[in-house]
């Protein structure tokens, strides 16, 4: 049985001049352990789709199945990483990371222990008591990542997580993300990442879903079987990048 299944998902938003169709009839399944990237032009509804999977917003039509059961409301087995980091500015790094644990009613001692593990994993040692505004963009996103990992989700949802960072920081964080994904002691093995950077998708994912825009439809579902670690200068890498690029171009 698939871990996650989307069945004929569609979504439209009420608009001043009628309604705007963002997603139309999107169906796919995700298996445990997959690293899936969703790419598409802006306005194709990729971020919306992530929010529907998380349960933050209801779909207009279709259903989301998690382990065969229909998801209704927030799915706490998923954790979301935001493009804008979405950290609470008045909470310290540690308190931000403990947020999800606190929501689950985990006692303070256990919270502290768990937060400590993930602070260490993402390389935030020494910054526990700092406030988000004192951190650089890269460090902030480490907090966002640690906060999501700390609730030990089965699925990690990432909404353009590296788009607000400079290129060099993004490279480092991508590598660290792959390390986390591969490491045995991490409970999360399934990652869905939304991105508009095609190279990022090809470098990270082992499956790429291409969405077309207006309305967003599933245009292609490509496996990525390049050997890891992947090198951006390799021929296979470039060929795949070009292929995804042309797929997006012809659909928009």
């Amino acid at each position, binding site marked *: 049985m698939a871990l996650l299944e989307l069945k004929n998902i569609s979504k439209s938003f009420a*608009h*001043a001049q009628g309604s705007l169709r963002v997603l139309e009839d999107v169906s796919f399944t995700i298996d445990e352990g997959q690293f899936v990237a969703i790419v598409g032009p802006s306005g194709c509804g990729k971020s919306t789709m992530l*929010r529907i999977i*998380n349960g*933050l917003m209801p779909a207009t039509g279709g259903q989301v199945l998690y382990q065969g059961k229909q998801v209704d409301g*927030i799915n*706490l087995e998923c*954790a*979301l990483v*935001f493009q*804008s*980091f*979405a*950290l*609470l*500015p*008045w*909470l310290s790094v540690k308190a931000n990371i403990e*947020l*999800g644990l*606190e*929501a*689950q009613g985990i006692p303070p001692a256990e919270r502290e222990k768990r937060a400590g593990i993930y602070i260490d994993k993402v390389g935030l040692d020494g910054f526990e008591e700092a406030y*988000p*505004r004192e951190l650089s963009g890269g460090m*902030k996103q480490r907090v966002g990542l640690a*906060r999501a990992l700390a*609730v030990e989700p089965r699925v990690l949802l990432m909404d353009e997580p590296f788009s607000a960072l400079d290129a060099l920081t993004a490279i480092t964080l991508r590598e660290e993300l792959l390390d986390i994904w591969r490491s045995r002691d991490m409970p999360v093995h399934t990652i869905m990442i939304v991105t508009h950077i095609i190279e990022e998708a090809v470098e990270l994912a082992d499956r790429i879903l291409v969405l077309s825009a207006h309305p967003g439809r599933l245009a292609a579902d490509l496996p990525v079987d390049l050997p890891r670690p992947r090198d951006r200068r390799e021929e296979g890498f470039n060929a795949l990048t070009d292929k995804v690029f042309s797929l997006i171009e012809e659909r928009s």
Partner: protein
Amino acid sequence: MLRGSGWQARMASQTNARRMLSTAASFLAVAAIVALFFAYKRYQPALHAPRLRVHARELPYYAFCSFYRMLAAYVIALLFSLIYGTAAARSRARERVMIPIIDVLQSVPVVGFFPAAIYFFVSLAHGRLGVELAAIFLIFTSMAWNMVLGVFESVRTIPTDSMEALDAFGASWWLKLKRLLLPACVPKLVYNSILSWVGGWYFLIACEIITAGPAEYRLPGLGSFLMTAADRGRTGELIAGLLALLAVIVAMDIVVWQPLSTWAEKFRYEFAASSEPMRSLGMLDALSSIGPSITRLMRTIFRPPLRWIVHLLSNRPPFDPAAHPLVVRTGRALRLALIAGMFFILAYGLIEGLTALIRTLLQPWPSATRQIPAATVASMIRMTIAYLISLLWTIPCAIYASENQRFARALAPIAEIVGSVPATALFPLIVLFFIRMTGGMNLASIVLILTGMQWYLLFNLLGGVSQIPADLKEAARSFGLSRIQTWRKLTLPAIAPSLLTGSITAWGGGWNALILSEYFVYRGATHEVFGLGAMLDEATYKTNNGVMILLTLLSMVLVVILLNRFMWRRLYDVATERYRIDY
């Protein structure tokens, strides 16, 4: 959105000694201003009080009179705020002097200055003109300060690179003003203008009946109409008057403020965190079609004098190799004369004010002076109760608005209209109701203070709620925070700065309401409670004792300044430091 201006920009943590010093200095300055006005008391105005006709037929005329008074005060306040605010924002040295003055003026209860201002203006111009000027001046003082701070903050927060971009093109001062400074002021100016009109209506109603010693003068207008109707027990006319007032306020909101607010949106630098689709109104289109011709007219009228003012104010006139040396020298001389003249007026006012202050205080103090501390405590208790009641309903309201978009969207326009109906117009009804119910004035007085406080809190809190970024709300939901956890972790911290700004402005409004609410004359009978406001009113309207007026007013000012400096300001600094959203 609705966040009262001014306090944000100045978070410089002052040392205690400097705080004390500046507190003492500002108190002395206000004392001098008060005394200066009272110095004109020796010109006892002889006012002929025409009997006001209370008939619904007269209402359109009265509504017009009230409206033009508001408009005159607003236009003066607008020009004043643009000049003063820009001047203060463009130089650190000027800011250090100019902004604390506004801070003090903003927190001092304007209503207390009523009699003083009347003496002053009636001695300047006798008869109705003097009274009109006094009324316009009082409305001006209730409108100007927040607008000044709005302009100041807007100019101060213009991104450096925008300024540099214009500098790099060698833009003149005039071009910078037109293309950068003024547009940057628009959002805050529009928002503060709405607030100013709300405050203006409140005072207008209270200040159209002007009592100067034994003489009473009723200016034709909605305020005096309502008060006279209530006094004569004419319920029908009272309701008609209230409806007329409501009609003017609603019309202003629909025809002016809503289109202006929509228009002001396009001048924002930042994009609203939780962006709502912009409301488009038919009215706006109508306005934009007649807009250009109005603009052209305004341009021909205002451009030359404005340009001249700007030129005089600018620190460094742009280098112009073609300028004739005579023109340059004349400009420089004019500037010097202007500055010297202002200094002269200031020095004269200061000396005059201080001598008046000393002269008044040297007179024998009446025995009632000893009751001032107790009266202050009594008034503070009333204000605190009113404040707590305001918190009790506005905070839950704001929290609910943060959870329910539909509720928030429905509440905002309703609150805007209801909140801008000046409570002073309802005073007779409220007082009558409570006196009949409880037999005393105490509860009525608290309710009256409440009407002067609650809306500031509600507006600020709703503004704070609307500023909570959508992604933070999403994060809270995504991690499964319960309702109470969301309040604790997200909503309450996020609205803390607005709560403080709201509280500061609410207390400012409360002090004004206090003066109007502890002492009420109805059909010849005086209803009063023991308190600072009642003491002031009694000294003004009954005993006409200058020393007593001055002493009660100064005690009030002292309490206000101390509270602001040592409580609100500190809390505000903590709140903005810790709970600002700027990740």
